[in-house]
């Protein structure tokens, strides 16, 4: 791939990217979320068209308009979320995606071929089983068979290990090595340093849509890769007032939470949070942050462990009970959880608060107060809309976000759980929000801040935990010098024991 560029609505997702893979090579693609890894691969797979640049295969310039053409060029892709039909058997799923499947009796015709393949690469898979009976690792192998059967020389794996157990990861690595030995090319997307070092021959590091480094895995080490990925040495630029810790507000004791994929997403995490404190949780997203936030705010079930607020047990209480105990939540997937798109702005401005005395009297809502409240949020948080009698789906993403933030913050919560609060906001709004968080802290609230933006974390937080794969790699004061290795911790290659001294 040569000089590939692609932008979405003025934001460069990929800028002048050059990439080449040789046969028998495993290429790692490393970068934080939103660095442009998946966009780049989707261009190669024909899902997107590049704005500029060209793709060459075996020396010939090609134009890939859609995934079918990409398959014909020998490119296969295994997505992060599997594209399998749960109620069909393995063989049926394979037949469905195979280009030479006959119209009649498809299963019989391709059965031999699948078995032959599965033997060649040691897949160990029962092709008569239904997909829902298989583990995530086995489903992934079905996806790989599908790609190989269509003659894929180049296989793209998008974060293949995120759904696997450690044992399955080992099996996957063995399969990939076998494929490499037979001359296949593999592009391996990940943000986990250990795996990249383990599997890949060469690594490209992406950051904000650009390639910021490339190296042979033999000639580099995790530390320098981590630095490339995070993009800078961590700077300590703190200009917030020192405040004495207040009373204990929240304590989380050894909680375990199961994620959407059925695996443990939060593993035995404990921490405490005090008044007048901002506690940051840094990490690449998808490492259990969302599940942790949802567990604390009552949306997700906690399988074991305890959450206490002001000394009261709030484990697995309903979201409303937790809200009534002074906990606000700015959810990560704001559009999905935070709004009812077809309702008016003022309807959305009281979501979660509509049962409070000031907005409702017996069975009725006090729409006059509701509208005044909405107007004050709109003016205070500079939500641009022509009217509060507007359906919220007509607003841009940034403006929706400002409204949600205004709603959650203006209530002076005792604890604010904020997931990526500034994501997608413009500079001015970001600045305003950060000031507001510090103001909340001054007034005695506790803030639990999830963010991928290290600058934000270090600017705002008193203490920082680094989360990786559902575990805390370190919990330190934010001015601790050991944070120079935060890149390694975010990629799971370094852990600081809480007992360890400076």
């Amino acid at each position, binding site marked *: 791939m040569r000089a590939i560029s692609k932008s979405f609505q003025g934001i460069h997702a990929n800028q002048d990217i050059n990439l080449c893979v040789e046969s028998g090579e495993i290429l790692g693609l490393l970068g934080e979320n939103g660095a442009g890894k998946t966009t780049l691969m989707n261009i190669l797979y024909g899902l997107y068209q590049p704005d500029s640049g060209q793709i060459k295969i075996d020396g010939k310039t090609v134009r890939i308009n859609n995934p079918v053409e990409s398959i014909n060029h020998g490119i296969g892709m295994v997505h992060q979320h599997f594209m399998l039909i749960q109620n069909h058997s393995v063989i049926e799923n394979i037949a469905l995606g195979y280009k030479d499947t006959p119209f009649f009796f498809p299963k019989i015709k391709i059965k031999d071929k699948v078995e032959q393949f599965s033997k060649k690469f040691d897949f160990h898979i029962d092709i008569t089983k239904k997909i829902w009976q298989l583990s995530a690792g086995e489903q992934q192998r079905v996806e790989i068979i599908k790609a190989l059967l269509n003659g894929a020389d180049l296989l793209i794996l998008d974060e293949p290990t995120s759904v696997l157990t450690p044992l399955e990861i080992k099996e996957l690595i063995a399969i990939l090595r076998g494929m490499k030995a037979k001359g296949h090319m593999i592009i391996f997307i990940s943000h986990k340093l250990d795996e990249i070092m383990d599997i890949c021959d060469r690594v490209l590091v992406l950051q904000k849509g650009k390639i910021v480094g490339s190296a042979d895995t033999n000639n580099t080490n995790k530390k320098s890769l981590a630095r490339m990925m995070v993009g800078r040495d961590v700077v300590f630029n703190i200009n917030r007032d020192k405040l004495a810790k207040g009373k204990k507000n929240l304590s989380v004791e050894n909680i375990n939470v199961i994620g959407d994929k059925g695996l443990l997403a939060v593993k035995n995490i404990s921490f405490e949070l005090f008044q007048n404190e901002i506690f940051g949780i840094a990490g690449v997203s998808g490492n259990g942050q969302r599940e942790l936030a949802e567990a604390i705010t009552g949306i997700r079930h906690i399988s074991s462990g305890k959450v206490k607020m002001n000394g009261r047990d709030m484990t697995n209480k*309903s*979201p409303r009970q937790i809200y009534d105990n002074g906990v606000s939540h700015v959810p990560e997937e704001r559009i*999905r*959880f935070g709004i009812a798109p077809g309702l008016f702005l003022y309807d959305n401005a009281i979501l979660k608060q*509509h*049962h409070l005395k000031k907005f409702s009297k017996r069975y009725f809502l006090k729409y006059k107060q509701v509208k005044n409240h909405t107007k004050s949020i709109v003016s205070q948080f500079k939500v641009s809309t022509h009217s509060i009698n507007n359906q919220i789906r007509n607003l841009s993403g940034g403006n929706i976000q400002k409204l949600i933030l205004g709603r959650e913050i203006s209530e002076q919560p005792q604890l604010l759980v904020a997931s990526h609060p500034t994501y997608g906001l413009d500079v001015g709004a970001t600045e305003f929000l950060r000031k507001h968080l510090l103001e909340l802290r001054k007034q005695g609230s506790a803030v639990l801040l999830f963010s991928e933006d290290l600058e934000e974390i270090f600017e705002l937080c008193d203490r920082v935990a680094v989360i990786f794969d559902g575990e805390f790699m370190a919990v330190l004061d934010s001015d601790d010098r050991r944070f120079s290795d935060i890149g390694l911790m975010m990629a799971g290659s370094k852990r600081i024991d809480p007992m360890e001294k400076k």
Partner: protein
Amino acid sequence: MIKIKTTDRYNITTLRSFMTNILCLLAALVVISIIFLIAGVNPIYAISEIFLGSFGSFYGIKETITKAIPLILIGTGLTLAFRAKFWNIGAEGQLLMGAIFATWTGLTFGEALPPYIIVPLIFLAGFIGGGLWGAIPAILKIKYSINEVISTLMLNYICAEILTMLIVGPWKGKTRFGFPGTNNLPDSAILGLIPGSRIHYATLILAILCAIVLSVIIYKTRFGYEARVVGENPDAGKYAGINFLKTSLILMAISGGLAGLAGVGEVAGIHHYLGYPASISSGYGFTAIIVAWLAKLNPLYAIISGIFFAGILVGGDAIQISLGLPAATVEIVNGTLLIFLIMGDYFLNHKITFQFSSK
């Protein structure tokens, strides 16, 4: 080659929404005309007969209003359920259950009580009957994730069979001379009519009151707010701490209860006894779905769309007689209208553009 591209449409004005509905009705009329042509009938004549039959004479108007009563009641109830995206296809069964409860109450207590006690009592019984029948799918949906379209639809058949079993078995009346059906309700339990018509005015007033009350519930109360949030985005509902079981139970009890009231009107106002399911309700529960949809899920508009569809039912009867068309004609007309209205909704929310390319 023509490429078709769809994009979401924002800022939908009332005018556009209104015009889309009119266009849909016109488009549906064109298709209906083709069907009439195939049946060998002059479509302009047939369609004008439908509207003359329903709105063109004093008798027609009286009949139209009679049939509009159950449609308005059920239709308003459905607007609430559909707002919360609870697809209640079971109003027919809820109507019958209301009729069963009302008949039992009327037959048991009617002799002893004066009209001003027994009439409110049978309406209450009908509301409870329909409400309970409506609550079953709500529990099934929230507790066991059973799709409400299936459960409400199937409960229609169960209720119809229960009713049939009652009227051929334990409730069979002596005055029916061996035919299935209960005895007539006592006079005190029978609803008064506007003289010279079949309009049972008590139910008509109740229907209009219900539409007003329901629009207050939907737009002004906390419960209505929660129902709308759940309908718009269940995830946001969960996040906002809304109790899904409670919300669904209440809204289905109301939606089913209103259908139950319609059942009371049919039994106590028109038939005076409980007969076969098909004679108690001629598919009002299904026609009301279109009523609610044409009303854009606004209970007040349901009054107008209820009268409109009642007109089609009455006019349909008229052309059956005058043109000798089969009874299913009205259903074809209704079904076609519904399909076009639903399609109209899609075109209202999406913008379709055609791109012509040389290749």
